[in-house]
């Protein structure tokens, strides 16, 4: 086992295959730790981490905060809605002010693609991208692959279909990078209007028939329609979307084989998947959430050990 090849986690695009393997191996150990009766280790007791969220988040923010606390790091939280950003402060100034309070690592979510990269170039701290616009969400993709590995024994050679709003989804892009890097076969499925124009150039297949896509895959990762990012009308009605691209129990049971259902959350029950699918034996949605803490502990631990 070695070191990560990067000093920041800005996107899956910048990782090597070995980095992902190292993160997974480390996450295995942390998963054991968080299932103990005392779930805390003292590794990061001299590290301070700032969670800066310029966009709303429940799961990711809680998961990062829990991961940081389980590693004994000191944590400060910052939500842009209650800050000086509203008074006109720039991103670099905001972060440098936080860093001058001796913060070692920044976990940031921002609505603009590339915000993490920009920050990594301009401030002295280890940066973890917790989602930058429609660009990347690397820890989500890592925990998705980790959950597939846990459920199916590996990622390489598996068929994974990502269904829904691919165009506006950072989860989709990071997942495509992560899955391809590990040798999985990837297809995207959704209304033509919500598939990026040149998505094939990433080495993924395109399918607009949901039943065909599901019959092909081992795993279906169901994405939410990102209503907050839909600037124009991409499909006639939600009802029509659900009829064509929603997964219900009848559809799932009529497939040739038993597939694994994933969802990064938040779920719009009854739109992309029905409740009985989300809560079925085939769904690993809650495992994903549990694995999220272990994956984030691993990423933070490995990056923090490179801070000198």
């Amino acid at each position, binding site marked *: *086992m*070695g*070191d*990560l090849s990067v000093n920041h986690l800005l996107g899956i695009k910048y990782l090597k295959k070995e980095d992902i393997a190292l993160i997974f191996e*480390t996450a*295995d*150990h942390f998963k*054991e*730790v968080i299932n*103990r*009766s*005392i*779930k*805390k*280790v*003292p*590794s*990061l007791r*001299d590290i301070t981490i700032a969670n800066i969220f310029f966009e709303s988040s429940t799961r990711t923010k809680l998961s990062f905060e829990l991961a940081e606390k389980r*590693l004994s790091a000191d944590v400060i939280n910052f939500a842009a809605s209650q800050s000086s950003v509203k008074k006109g402060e720039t991103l670099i100034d905001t972060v440098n002010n936080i860093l001058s309070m001796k913060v070692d690592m920044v976990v940031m979510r921002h609505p603009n693609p590339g915000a993490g990269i920009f920050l990594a170039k301009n401030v002295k701290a280890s940066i973890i991208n917790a989602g930058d616009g429609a660009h990347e969400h690397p820890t989500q993709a890592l925990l998705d692959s980790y959950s597939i590995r846990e459920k199916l024994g590996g990622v390489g050679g598996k068929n994974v279909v990502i269904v829904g709003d691919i165009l506006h989804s950072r989860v989709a892009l990071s997942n495509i990078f992560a899955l391809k890097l590990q040798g999985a076969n990837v297809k995207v499925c959704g209304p033509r209007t919500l598939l990026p124009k040149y998505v094939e150039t990433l080495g993924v297949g395109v399918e607009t028939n949901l039943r065909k896509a599901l019959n092909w895959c081992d795993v279906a990762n169901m994405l939410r329609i990102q209503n907050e990012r839909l600037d124009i009308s991409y499909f006639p009605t939600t009802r029509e979307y659900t009829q064509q691209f929603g997964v219900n129990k009848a559809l799932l049971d009529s497939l040739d084989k038993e597939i694994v259902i994933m969802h990064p959350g938040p779920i719009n029950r009854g739109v992309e998947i029905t409740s009985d699918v989300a809560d079925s034996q085939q769904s690993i949605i809650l495992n994903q959430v549990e694995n999220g803490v272990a994956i984030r502990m691993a990423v933070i*631990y*490995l990056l*923090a*050990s*490179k*801070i*000198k």
Partner: protein
Amino acid sequence: MGQKVLLSSKEINIILHRLACQLLESHLDFKDTVLIGLQPRGIYVAQRLKKILVEEYGVKHIALGFLDITFYRDDFRRGDKTLAATQTKIDFLVEDKKVVLIDDVLYTGRSIRAALTAIQSFGRPSEIELLTLIDRRFSRHLPIQPNYRGRQVDAINNEKVKVMWKENDGEDTVYLVDR
């Protein structure tokens, strides 16, 4: 880099049997005692001792676990390399048990310090003892001493004690190596 043999396979075997007898003397049926081998190298000592106790001294049941101390070490971020973890496997609680920590070489005592913290995550033991195959007695950084020791070694700091096991390294031998 020179190396000399500190203990041969035969000597290791004799010492392990003596340590097993000493454990037996203080713990008898091992009803309230658990053995914890420290990762990565202490687990071999622990497995050998358990084997001797079960097969040769007829102890019916001995709880054996492996403890990884990586996340409890006090040198995180102080070296060049990321500290790599190994597997922890303790599928019982140590609450109110007598814990015997087992390692191959006791050197500075820092690993044992970390192990004393780490084991707390699995409950509150009624007491903790320490068994090591090799005790480098003049190299301690902390006030930690073993309850059971295989062999005391007066090695200087630029020497390294290397314990080899048949199941992992192909031979049972303890070497003293010049660095």
